[in-house]
């Protein structure tokens, strides 16, 4: 009598334990999947403000507010390349020297005590920017001015300034075009300098800057569509200039709510600043990105979140049948050497990216051809049609 009860109880306990154990195992497996979900191990940020002059105060404030958020969420100065084209904090016209405010009534000083500007004033040029991205930098460049990313880096690139359809103005003297930018990103891809890239631009007609990207794993956001102007937000009557641009202002507000543990994803970032607040229509581009934006955390790009999971269980990882083991047996060495060595196919690009051939816009013939035809027609009329022309004149 007691023995069967004991056994049944034991049996039930064993079942429960087993169930719990499998649940725990699956949970850990889920966590493990999550551990390797994003594929990046470090974060970088390249923040660029391209305009100078006192009345472009808001562009510097934009960049500094993104810098501030990014630093708060964990990316250290050694992994941030901050490029500011002009010094607003120490400008003679600044009634509050050593500060740059982003909210009126001087609520928030984004300049702070520990800002580290890597490229300042006239060093912010198109050439320097492209060199930073592609890594073709002279050996004498200090470490703080380099983007030392690898193929497991998630990079945030934020640009602001004055832009137009297909270009961004640097320093009032030169421009970078969307094609140059796309090519720079392609160079980065081919050199395996990023794992995933988030590109944010806050300028007029910003969407034109991401139209030409063709490298994989890039997600892009812009503050306005082609043909629209990005508007500035609040003027401060004590300082006398506009303090921020609308889009970045609302992005900053959004980022202030994020902390390193938050699970907010990219879809929420796409909703920031609807047309009612921003007047322009923000746009985004995700077709080159492999993961679904709703699975991409904000902290994947804006923060430097170290994934640490303490587990007491052991996990067995699946063997990848494609990776072949090489053994160094002498009798097989010749055969091995016969096989050509090739890089493992990490990402079959051609299979992912299906790009439609772009329709070339038809332009009316101009310039030389028009002149040539006009000449031909004139000669024709001169020799044959002059008598008929007399009746007209």
């Amino acid at each position: 009598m007691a023995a069967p009860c004991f056994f049944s109880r034991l049996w039930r306990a064993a079942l429960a334990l087993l169930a719990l154990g499998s649940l725990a195992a699956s949970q850990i497996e889920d966590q493990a999947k999550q551990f390797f979900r994003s594929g990046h191990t470090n974060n970088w940020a390249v923040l660029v403000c391209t305009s100078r002059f006192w009345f472009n105060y808001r562009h510097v404030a934009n960049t500094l507010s993104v810098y501030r958020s990014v630093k708060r969420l964990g990316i250290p100065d050694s992994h941030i390349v901050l490029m500011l084209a002009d010094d607003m904090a120490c400008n003679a016209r600044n009634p509050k020297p050593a500060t740059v405010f982003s909210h009126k009534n001087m609520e928030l000083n984004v300049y702070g005590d520990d800002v580290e500007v890597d490229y300042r004033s006239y060093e912010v040029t198109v050439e320097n920017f492209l060199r930073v991205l592609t890594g073709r930098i002279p050996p004498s460049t200090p470490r703080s001015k380099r983007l030392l990313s690898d193929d497991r880096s998630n990079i945030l690139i934020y640009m602001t300034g004055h832009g137009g359809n297909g270009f961004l103005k640097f320093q009032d003297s030169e421009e970078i075009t969307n094609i140059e930018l796309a090519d720079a990103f392609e160079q980065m891809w081919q050199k395996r300098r990023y794992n995933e890239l988030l590109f944010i631009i806050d300028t007029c007609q910003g969407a034109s800057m991401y139209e030409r990207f063709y490298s994989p794993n890039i997600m892009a956001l812009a503050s306005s569509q082609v043909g629209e102007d990005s508007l500035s937000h609040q003027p401060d009557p004590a300082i006398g200039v506009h303090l921020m641009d609308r889009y970045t202002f609302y992005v900053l507000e959004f980022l202030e709510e994020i902390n390193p543990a938050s699970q907010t994803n990219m879809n929420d970032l796409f909703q920031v600043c609807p047309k009612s607040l921003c007047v322009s229509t923000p746009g985004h581009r995700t077709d080159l990105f492999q993961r679904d934006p709703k699975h991409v955390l904000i902290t994947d790009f804006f923060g430097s979140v170290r994934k640490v999971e303490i587990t007491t269980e052991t996990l067995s990882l699946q063997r990848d049948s494609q990776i072949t083991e090489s053994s160094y047996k002498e009798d097989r060495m010749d055969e091995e050497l016969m096989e050509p060595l090739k890089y493992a196919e990490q990402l079959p690009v051609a299979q992912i990216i299906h790009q439609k051939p772009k329709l070339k816009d038809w332009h009316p013939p101009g310039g030389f051809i028009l002149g040539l035809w006009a000449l031909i027609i004139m000669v024709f009329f001169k020799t044959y049609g002059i008598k008929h022309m007399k009746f007209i004149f």
Partner: protein
Amino acid sequence: MGLLSDPVRRRALARIVLRLNTPLCVLSYVAGIAWFLALAFPPLTQRTYMSENAMGSTMVEEQFVGGDRAQGFARDFAAHQRKSRALPVAWLERMMRSVGLEVYTQSFSRKLPFPDETHERFMVSGTNVYGILRAPRAASTESLVLTVPCGPDSTNSQAVGLLLALAAHFRGQIYWAKDIIFLVTEHDLMGTEAWLEAYHDVNVTGMQSSPLQGRAGAIQAAVALELNSDVVTSLDVTVEGLNGQLPNLDLLNLFQTFCQKGGLLCTLQGKGLQTLLLMVLRQASGRPHGPHGLFLRYRVEALTLRGINSFRQYKYDLVTVGKALEGMFRKLNHLLERLHQSFFLYLLPALSRFVSIGVYMPATGFLLLVLGLKALELWMQLHEVGVSPQEAGGSPNPGPPLPGAQGVSLASLLAPVLISQAMGLALYILPVLGQHVAVQHFPVAEAEAVVLTLLAIYVAGLALPHNTHRVVSSQAPDRGWMALKLVALIYLALQLGCIALTNFSLGFLLAATMVPAAALTSPHGPRPFYAALLMLTSPAAILLGSLFLWRELQEVPLSLAEGWQLFLTALAQGVLEHHTYGALLFPLLALGLYPCWLLFWNVLFWK
């Protein structure tokens, strides 16, 4: 063959021009006048807008509260000035230093060519006082100027008070990126001219001034202030400067924006067409209507603000004016380059509306087209282009006609031209040179002597035609006057065209009056009528007429006697301003337009 080289076609074209000439001329003239009158109304006017990006759309908060302090300074200044009868230099220096500026003085002196009756001065000497507020964190490469002209007849004490109070307020701010110069000049515009010449190290007008000890870099903009009372009902702004130069429209836009922001009433005299005509008359006179007019020569954009105390209900005190000035200076502080984005040549039918040069120039174009058409007609008549060879059988010339072969010798053309120019030269030089001789022989003052000599030479020129014929004898009288008229028309067209480019108002005014007379003049036809028309449109008569018009527009009409007195004063002032400031109206009329007009007078009395 081409249109102009084919004789048949050329004759056809010439016939069209000759036949339609009068209607075309009349149409063109009417079109020009109508275009000008239409400039005051909406489709041709535009709303003013701020073009300079650096001065942007953001407003700044003004914090000036020194109204009482300003009045205190003003009272002290008035008291000191009454005591010493000249500018209280020591007091000004002390006050500026106490406010915190770097103070310097400059003395100047000038002997006028003849005594000035209106200001009662002959030997002018005075002292300018100016204080520099250095920019706290910038190099002194650029500066702004706030100037208050003081003279024996214009008590500008409130403006001085406001200047000192503003200086005290500005000194406490740290956001200045340019130096600010606070300038108080003696003897109104003479002091300003002396200061400007010394600052820019030039000597254009023969002023003797001591060199400046303190400088502040290139001047970007200047504001001149004239206030006569503690409260103002409106602020009047003057833009026309010396020789009709105008400041950049952005400065006016800036002033207007701050007027709107502070609720201050800012005015431009008159309304609609009246304002336009007043501006045209002021610009045509070429006088500097305030210290700003002298700044413009050095390409420093400047305005003069005059406080007016009329019988309106609402009055503004010095704090409002001070706030408007503070806002303007704060915005000018943001400038990175000189003002250059907006228009330099424009007309103002109202304070917030303007007409740009591209829109108003066709008016003068149409008027000058009349001269061109008339000249073309004369040329064709001279060369008998409209006459076919059969019709011209009676003419003794077998081959193509040459200009000289028709009996119009160069001498017969050149002589009237040279004699007229000589008359013009006499008109320019003799009055001032001969004033002492005149004073010795006649019981008149020097200024009167100058004016009367001017008039005498002018009238003497009218007697010329009767004498030129003794010098010149021409075989073909008809061709003689036609050739002369051709030359005169081209000369007039060139002059008026050049004048209209730099001073549109003067060019248009002269064209509107002189063109009909010039086009109509000929020895054949009703001589007395043409003589009267030509007299009425001579430069002196135009001056007289425009004085009457000006007073009429200002709603202070003149009687004939007053008008004549004003005319004489204007003549004296014109000569004086030419010598003291370099105004160009007197030389233009004497050396350019008067000889041209004399040529037409010669044509009229051709025998």
